[in-house]
């Protein structure tokens, strides 16, 4: 039995990957109209105060950068938006620190690194920086994280008839963790999504519905490399390529061990 469709309107998009500092650049790049900017090497979100920009883990910088971009693009106030933060593996740099310190000198664990190790650390930094008291969740669904997080944001938006911020990101994976959880680049994408009626929907989502996907879009070399080196890029770039093309498109993303998410891009 198929499930009912959830319609959402995308009100704003944020993007960050090395060479591609925002959605405007990435959209042009996905259309083949722009090359990567080699000066873009690290996210530096203004939303964090300078001291935190220096100290915060890369995963936090990445998530806050794309979240702030999406809010600005949507015109919504960041301080009232409910949020869904999503990462395939969480912050593997900190996982590596925790596990190697525990193996050698467990009593020397850094308290700041410990509180930064929670999966919702980026959401915590974000809500503090944005002065946001709205609900925030942090999720993972392994290789289906992006599809499931987009669906969860759409559920929240439709259930409460409110806009919701989605921020999905993966940082890189150090050795030896990269043997089991590979990621060799950093990547983040964010969207502000709102409930939509028929004619204003940007996306129509259907869980486990039989859909006939359009022919998959060609990814320019730089983006194909991203998809090959970062799990969140692999999971989300098919949708972003369709959005960049601004043509109707139907995709089917893995949404679980035996589940799929059908996405109709209505723009």
């Amino acid at each position, binding site marked *: 039995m198929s499930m009912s469709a959830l319609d959402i309107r995308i009100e704003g998009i944020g993007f960050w990957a090395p060479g591609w500092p925002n959605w405007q650049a990435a959209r042009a790049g996905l259309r083949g109209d722009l090359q990567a900017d080699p000066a873009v090497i690290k996210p530096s979100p203004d939303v964090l105060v300078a001291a935190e920009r220096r100290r915060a883990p890369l995963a936090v910088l990445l998530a806050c950068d794309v979240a702030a971009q999406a809010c600005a693009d949507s015109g919504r106030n960041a301080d009232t938006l409910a949020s869904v933060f999503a990462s395939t593996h969480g912050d593997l740099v900190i996982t590596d620190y925790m*596990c190697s310190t525990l193996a050698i000198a467990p009593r020397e664990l850094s*308290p700041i690194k410990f*509180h930064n190790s*929670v*999966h919702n650390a980026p*959401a915590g930094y974000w809500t503090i920086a944005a002065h946001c008291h*709205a609900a925030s969740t942090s999720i993972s669904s392994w290789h289906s994280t992006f599809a499931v997080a987009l669906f969860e944001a759409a559920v929240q938006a439709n259930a409460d008839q409110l806009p919701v911020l989605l921020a999905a990101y993966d940082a890189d994976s150090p050795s*030896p963790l990269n043997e089991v959880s590979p990621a060799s680049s950093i990547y983040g994408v964010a969207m502000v999504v709102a409930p939509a009626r028929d004619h204003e929907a940007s996306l129509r989502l259907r869980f486990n519905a039989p859909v006939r996907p359009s022919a998959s879009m060609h990814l320019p070399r730089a983006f194909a490399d991203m998809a090959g080196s970062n799990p969140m890029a692999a999971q989300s770039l098919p949708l972003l390529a369709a959005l960049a093309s601004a043509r109707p498109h139907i995709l089917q993303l893995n949404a679980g061990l035996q589940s799929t998410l059908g996405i109709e891009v209505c723009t």
Partner: protein
Amino acid sequence: MPETIDPIYITAHTATSALGHGLAEHLEVLRMERSGLRENDFSREPLTCAIGRVIGLEQRPLPEAYAAYECRNNRLAWLGIEADGFLDQARAAIGRYGADRVALLVATSTSSIGATEEAYARLEDGHFPENLRRSPIHTPHSLGIFLEHALGTRGPCLTTATACSSSAKIFATAERMIRLGIVDAAILAGVDSLCGSVLFGFNSLELVAPEPCRPFDVRRRGISIGEAAGFALVEREVSKTSPKLIGWGESSDAHHMSTPHPEGLGARLALEGALTRAGIAATDVDYINLHGTATTKNDEVEAGVVSAAFNARTRASSTKGWSGHTLGAAGILESVICLLVMEHGLIPGTLNCEQPDPVCGPQLALRNESADVRIALTNSFGFGGSNCTLAFACGGRS
């Protein structure tokens, strides 16, 4: 302001923790006022503290078919799901509604990071040892991957990992999905197990008590860490005898990564959200299972919020003196305790609290009491300022 929601029904539930395996053992130990905490014997060089350990996990490997998911956290999940016939009831619901119509919402703070810690302790030439080179157990969704495989659900499956509010928030996720007609039922699982990361991590923040935790006592010195697995099957279908979730509230402190808002702003917002969605007033609440971790700050802030919002008729207690703080599993473990409280009219006291902090209101129950409890709340607050309050009502009444 959120609108009132329709209740969802809790048609099966169970818990496994330091109190025991299943509902009957939990009820018995609560009645006896006997703590499940013990001296820390977990790691190789254990810290001096008490822990809430589930006994016998080491002797209970996963069934052969699930060997790829073998690790302490998934063992605890499997031990827990078999209690009280929960696994059979979950499978019956999947059969009744269809695998597509059942969501699997899991919650954990550290998932199976214990297995990753072990791999690092046993690196071979800088590589993971062969028997731990298994991707599904080194990722936050480990519990979800394992249970999705074992149960065969095809509805939305996700891990919520918001530290110590994780397994309270999945009740809200389920309610939204059921309200929108995305699914007819959801299987909720909250599992967190002992590991070096949390023992030494909380120790680094000087939040671990050297003795068994004393929630709300003036002499409290921090938490005792525990492990637990809790499960609930929630359904849309009206069932007069089943208890129900009638409200939830979620909020962010927007204050600090590891200490609560000093005036409990986030806690108050979560409480107001739960009462508003349930369509009830604070005076309707019979019992509150408090977050009550026994850290100086949490208990001070939470006691202030409760004494300001409720009158003396409402009873409140922390059960962490029995179980320890089971982190990502605390929300669902304490929800299950709320259901036991409503079913049996037993209000647990606040074990190990002898001299309550003067900030505590008259609501705090120190010793066990009996009372007719129709509406119960539970509070869960986590790092990153993540707060969730749930409201439950007993079966057979509106």
